[in-house]
């Protein structure tokens, strides 16, 4: 990766493409902006692209199809843009292998923040998918449904999770039996670094324990590792 990461912006709307390209350039990226999938394929073949920002709804070949093509041929991260808020779009997009998903109208600052999170993860060799992909994880009698951001207990009753609880639960479910430090958990769930007195993770852990532990005082699922952090001590199956 060069000093200035090279982004490929694919959007048929000139009114978005041009100002967004300008904004991203001002924020330290090299940007190539194209208006359709065919042109994007040419650029992908000819240039060393570090990340693709892709509009889903485009005339001709749509963003999802191009996303699948990119995933089949390379490891280049993809952020999808869409104007539709339907859940199914998001899930389909993530199933196609997109790394993140941004709803129009979006804050350009937030887009930049997400791009940076992805680059940092790539740089540290992190796993590709941290975003929900519509899958269900099963552990210790519980189901974690990513599509609905909810836990389902043995009786089939859903316990909806807050965003923070859900992110934390996902971090554990995708890394069972690994010891995760507070810093790691913060980085995975919120993309930020912990300061010395940060108790946010501990609060979320205790909230999660109240929900899933038979006895929150003596946790058997989310265990505390002294000096290390926390670990989910259970077999996790992805359904």
């Amino acid at each position, binding site marked *: 990766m060069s000093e200035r990461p090279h982004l490929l912006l694919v959007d048929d*709307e000139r*009114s*978005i493409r041009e*100002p*967004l390209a*300008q*904004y991203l350039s001002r924020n330290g990226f090299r940007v190539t902006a194209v208006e359709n999938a065919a042109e994007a394929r040419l650029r992908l073949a000819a240039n060393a692209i570090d990340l693709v920002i892709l509009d889903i*709804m485009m005339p001709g070949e749509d963003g999802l199809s191009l996303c699948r093509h990119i995933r089949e041929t390379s490891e280049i991260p993809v952020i999808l*843009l869409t*104007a*539709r*808020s*339907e*859940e*199914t779009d998001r899930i389909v997009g993530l199933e196609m292998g997109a790394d993140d998903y941004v709803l*129009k*109208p*979006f*804050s*350009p*600052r937030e887009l930049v923040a997400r791009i940076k999170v992805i680059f940092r993860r790539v740089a540290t060799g992190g796993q590709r998918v941290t975003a929900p992909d519509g899958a269900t994880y099963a552990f210790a009698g519980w189901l974690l449904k990513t599509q*609905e951001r*909810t836990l389902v207990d043995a*009786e*089939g*009753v*859903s*316990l*909806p*999770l*807050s*965003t*923070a*609880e859900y992110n934390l639960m996902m971090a554990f479910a995708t890394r069972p039996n690994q010891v995760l430090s507070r810093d790691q958990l913060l980085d995975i769930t919120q993309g930020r670094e912990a300061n010395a007195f940060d108790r946010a993770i501990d609060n979320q852990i205790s*909230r999660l324990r109240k*929900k899933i532990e038979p006895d929150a005082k003596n946790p058997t699922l989310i265990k505390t590792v002294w000096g290390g952090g926390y670990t989910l001590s259970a077999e996790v199956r992805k359904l």
Partner: protein
Amino acid sequence: MKQLRLWPQSLVGQIIVLVAIALFVAQAINFGLLLRERNRVELTSQTAPVVYRVINALDVRPDRWPGRDNREQGEDRDRDRRNVDFATTRPTLTGKPRPDVEARAAAMFEDIGLTVHAIAAAEDSRIMPLRRWEQIRSRATGEAPRDHRVGRLTLAVEYEPGKWLSTEARIGSRPPRFGGWLVAQTLILYVIVLIPLLWMGRRFARPLKQLTGSARQFARTGLADPVEESGPGDVRQLTTAFNAMRARIIAMLDEKDRMLGAIGHDLRTPLASLRVRTESVEDEGERARMSQTIEEMNRMLDDILSLARAGRSSETAQKVDLTSLADAVVEDFIELGSPVDMIDSDRAVAFVRAQQIRRALRNLIENAIVYGDRAHVSVQHQDGAIRIIVADEGPGIAEDKMGEMMEPFTRLEGSRNRETGGAGLGLALVRAIMAEHGGSLQLANRPGGGLEASLVLPA
């Protein structure tokens, strides 16, 4: 007025009850006619013997053939004159007068062509001597002989002025045995008529019931399976028509959804463009205000699209712990630094679409924060229902404005500034979501001040 409980509500029930009543009335009329006819026959059979005796006696009366005294005729005369008394004054009759017999006898005399001047009839009873076999039986068994009373009818006729003739004859009276026969006949009729009717009714009722169920389901969810076409022709046609209507409505709703999706997309694209461009505005305050306005427009658009799509959710309902749900929503608000707290509540499981309830609750909490400074959220069980309560510390709403608040595009008086924002769709959307769940949105002013908005859901 409360309806009589015996009167059934269903079509089949009403038909059967009506037919049963009609059958019973017809049977009663039949019975009345039969009884009348039987009485006439009875009367005739009582009257006839005395009348014929009188006629015979008059035919051979002594003053009829003064010159002739034929031997053969004389025997007849003797026989016919037996049991007949002639008198010159009106005989005194004992017992109960029988005007009905008098009338019948008069009619019979008239039919024969005999003119009589006056008729009197009476009935009494007397003890008859025991018959021979009865005496024997009584002796053999030691039983006391039964009271042997028989009815006796006396008829006196004035056949010429001042000349009376009277005669008497035994009459029997049969006790009527119609009651049991009527009941049996009615029951047989009921079985013959009502059983096929019941069968027919069920044939009608089953497809109608399916239609009702399907229509109800459709009204509630906007989705329903087509109804199987069965039953008699008329009902089958109704089912066909219903299925056609259902298909058309679904097609229209699908079309609406597609259109809304397109509108959403078309409006969000320029909004996104604006949002990106705001970043090039130098003045930071101005930039923040612009992006806030765009965010607001986007949320309005969201609300409009959601309201228009209400009742057509693709999400499936499942058992959800509403306390966990409320807690999760509150936690997300706290995370953003909003003044919201959750009051510890017991587990409360209901069958709902979780995303929709989340949305409804978020709307209530946002309202509470905007209009009532703080939001206190709790979940309660109440009379088989679950209430998710959002209480605030604001001024509340005037009682007469409560209903109005739930209509689309209504906002509190004095809140039409951009500061508080919103298109006034929030509560309308909440209400639509609640209606889809068979629940309701309730607003009430709290005794200590502030508004209490409750999502009431069936447990």
